[in-house]
């Protein structure tokens, strides 16, 4: 969707990170979903790198 197409649509936001940003969007009745984000493999670097190698295939 190009930028100009976006301007014609209702904004629907995925929020990833600070929950307060999500809450503020919700308080304005913006359609939004909050990602319960964690780093891949819970931050386990070894596992994240194994997953990265498989993704790189």
């Amino acid at each position: 969707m190009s930028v100009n197409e976006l301007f014609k649509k209702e904004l629907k936001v995925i929020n990833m990170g600070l929950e307060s940003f999500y809450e503020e969007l919700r308080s304005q009745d913006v359609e939004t979903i909050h990602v319960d984000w964690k780093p891949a493999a819970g931050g386990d670097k070894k596992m994240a790198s194994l997953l990265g190698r498989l993704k790189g295939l």
Partner: protein
Amino acid sequence: MANFIETANKKALEIMQNAQPTLVGMGVAKDVVPGMHKKLIMHAGPPITWDKMSGPLRGAVIGGLIYEGLATTPEEAEKLAASGEIEFDPCHHHQAVGPMAGVVTASMPVFIVENKTQGNFAYCTMNEGLGNVLRFGAYGDDVIKHLKWMEKTLYPVMKQALEIYGPIDLKTMIAQAAQMGDEVHNRNKAATSLFIREIASSIVKTDASKEDQVAVFDFLNSNDHFFLNLSMPASKSAMDPVGKVKHSTIVYTMARNGTEFGIRVAALGDRWFTGPAAIIDGLYFPGYSTDDANPDIGDSCITETYGIGGFAMATAPAIVQFVGGTPQDAVNYTTSMYEITLEESTIYKMPPMNFRGTPTGIDIRLVVETQILPVINTGIASKHAGVGQVGAGIVNPPMNCFTDALEAYVELLESEGMLG
């Protein structure tokens, strides 16, 4: 072009989705189960030796040896079990599954389930009902007597009834039950009812005495979990062929022996990846607490592996009380399982999820990435042999099963030169 992992997983998923588990008859373990012999005791979960077995599994082994006439007293049975004369091997190594302790011995009658699409078979004993039962490690006289009744009365009637009826399509039956509030692991009320309705006239047509027929009906009717011992081999028959798909990252076995939890992954063949079995967070029967609980035990989580059981919790709101939750919790459990599975079942649909298919095909990569563990519904056995069930609840496999498997998978690809 999709990479070879996705191609492999697609093939594995096709096998799962197209499986046709069908109940084709009954037989005695030593006659039908591959590799079964008089001195073999099959058990639930990954391999384990006598000295590491927990209370309920030991109890069930003792009961099994007495039932087989290999010992006459519990003391004698224990001595025999420790002697090395008895072979222990997982049900899973013999195309079989067993709930809780999962003990199967040579003379036990078993259901024979055939996956008509792939032509492979799976076996499981009949469900003993509630109370003092072998699968929870009870081995008293009443337990043995009940097993003998199952062998001498229940089995001949059921076997003949099934011969009269012909093959029963378990896939359709599970799909119907899933729309009637069963997830066919911890709730089997609807499925058991459907089964009785289906088989009833054939039971009446057997040459068994009226008295025996009545006893069989009473038993079936009194045991809501009778169908569990059919949903388990149905799942097993669907999953075994998945285990032969090269390079697939899908989990085809999850099982616990009361000491360890183990999984097996398609690409990694027969290798078990194990971690300590957990104590279950759940609803304990009055008078019991986690202090009384045995660590997680049983092959029944083959249902979750197949995408039903805990994965279909949304469709069985009646059992969320086991985890002290609401129907919304049940929906949330199922929703979270989509995060670690690759597809939705084309057959098992859940009305509360707007007839969405159950989460199907656990991918170890997704489990490790999201850190979300499979949700398993389960009964809780007492840690003391012979006491029985003390509660029910929800349990997860240990994370290291999945991280170890992922590591092994990457090593495998490396050794094959498939990774750059």
